[in-house]
């Protein structure tokens, strides 16, 4: 398994500003993922972040809006840029450890944009 922490756990931000979310894992992992969970909805994959390469974004998500960094095998950041109320969601980091295809999730960052 893997233990994942995220900072901040929650934040309230004004529209037009940006927020960077940090994800820290207790072991080295190749594959990290960022998901969004909008209020009352399921999880949607934003992007896959592998160390040493550019993040791969899913349809509907672009690098200018959600830039991602992956400087090493235990850490990643997701920035939500130029925020609007529609960006109010829970953002989750997850990792795949390579053990039987299991993915583990962080506790999430609850973002409210006013």
């Amino acid at each position, binding site marked *: 398994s893997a233990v994942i922490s995220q900072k901040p756990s929650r934040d309230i931000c004004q529209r037009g500003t940006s927020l960077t979310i940090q994800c820290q894992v207790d072991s080295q992992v190749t594959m990290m993922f960022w998901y969004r969970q909008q209020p009352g909805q399921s999880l*949607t994959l934003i992007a*896959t972040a592998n160390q040493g390469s550019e993040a791969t974004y899913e349809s509907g998500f672009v690098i200018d809006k959600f830039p991602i960094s992956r400087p090493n095998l235990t850490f990643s950041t997701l920035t939500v840029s130029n925020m609007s109320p529609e960006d109010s969601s829970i953002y989750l980091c997850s990792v*795949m450890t390579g053990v039987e*295809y299991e*993915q*583990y*999730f962080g*506790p999430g960052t609850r973002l409210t944009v006013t």
Partner: protein
Amino acid sequence: AQSVTQLDSQVPVFEEAPVELRCNYSSSVSVYLFWYVQYPNQGLQLLLKYLSGSTLVESINGFEAEFNKSQTSFHLRKPSVHISDTAEYFCASLAGNKLTFGGGTRVLVKP
């Protein structure tokens, strides 16, 4: 493209009664299937998974799920629920390295 459909958005159930959460998947390739649980104000936890082999898989807290290839289903069941099973349950399929989630089923266990 793969998709996962959870047929019930909410399932109210009385304590000690059985519960079944329905999940259907669609994929043109072999998939691995998972159930995750999200307790109130907590992150997602892996409940159980099907990769291959026996079509009936079990979790440590009494849940089980059966993979049915002909019906493209992976329904989750528990014969007797507890108040502590109140949570949201997500079915997911993995193809390549991408997890696709269903819409979730909110289970409310009533005393």
